């Protein structure tokens, strides 16, 4: 999907230090350098970010919605991955 040969880029913005980059949206740009600049102008013009990633949309591989069950269901039966699974005697701290 191009705009006169300008591919689509996905934009990820880190809103402040200590947080992960989060998907903010997409835009068109002729190349990575311009994509970064366009992203800065578009997605951080109200100081919403301190760092930006841009990725060509075509470079993202997504899990298929059809694979939803096999992909994500197995984890649902592994409660031992979560700290709340474990019982700790009262009064024990820093665990």
């Amino acid at each position: 999907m191009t705009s006169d040969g300008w591919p689509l880029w996905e934009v990820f913005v880190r809103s402040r230090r200590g947080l992960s980059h989060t998907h903010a949206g997409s835009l068109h740009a002729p190349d990575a350098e311009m994509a970064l600049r366009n992203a800065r102008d578009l997605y951080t013009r109200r100081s919403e970010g301190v760092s930006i990633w841009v990725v060509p949309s075509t470079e993202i591989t997504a899990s298929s919605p059809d694979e939803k069950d096999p992909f994500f269901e197995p984890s649902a039966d592994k409660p031992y991955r979560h700290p709340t699974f474990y019982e700790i005697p009262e009064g024990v701290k820093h665990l």
Partner: protein
Amino acid sequence: MTAVTAGTTGTTGTPGVSDAAVAATQAAYEAVFDAAVAADERIEPRDWMPEAYRASLVRQIAQHAHSEIIGMQPEANWITRAPSLRRKAILIAKVQDEAGHGLYLYSAAETLGTSRDELLDKLHAGRQKYSSIFNYPTLTWADVGAIGWLVDGAAITNQVPLCRCSYGPYARAMVRVCKEESFHQRQGYEALLALSNGTEAQHAMAQDAVDRWWWPSLMMFGPPDDESTHTAQAMAWKIKRHTNDELRQRFVDIAVPQAEALGLTLPDPDLRWNEERGHYDFGPIDWTEFWDVLKGNGPCNDQRLSQRRQAHEDGAWVREAAAAYAEKHTGKHGEAQA
């Protein structure tokens, strides 16, 4: 078509599968979709969705995006004449936001498997609409204020419920738009207030603008419910959450006291509080004008579309140059080489 943006249907044309099997799968998909909508879950780009839902969203999001970028024109008309530097800065920032909102919305539309180029081509060819309100001229500075107060006010009334729209990317774009748009209405109101409290000539300018923009703003909510072709289905799909008439009434109820605070009159002799309904009654809307402007006979239809086409054509060599440069200098990872 790209990995993240393509809509996948997954069931059509699979060789060796009987029509009955396809129909059964289709029905199963449809059931999942209906359940998600009923449960107020969001539909995401790669989920299966009925083709009519997809088409309806593309139509609505495209029209919305087009409205943002065509809507830049009537206000940009006053950037170079803004009467104070403070107002000028505000207006540039506002028109810039509209370009930004257009971009968010085109992005949302692209997740449905349609490209921005395609949508722009349709706009330029007059095959997709934008909000008719922008076919009215901005004749004085006060029009900038009236657009902020009334047109953006009506738009916000329309848009806030869209933040809960069933289609995820559209809803998310609208959250961002609404957050940014809150300043648009306030700046317009403030500009009008300054005029209303200003000299006699300024007050008259403000009143004249409100007289011209009031009725077209009410028309922005679309035709009355009994004539609206898209409303019922759009509400069933939770693309839309309220009917045109509900939203219009909500807007009138909000605007009347605001007009009083401004010291300006709304041009409707039938406007009065109805104790029984708990709403303001208002006079009949001239739907002939609405349909006429929609058909292309508004004062600025040709002008707006011509300017948009012209900008697009004039910019073609620039877009081509950047693409050619990228072609020459881009490594395999998309990084422009220094």
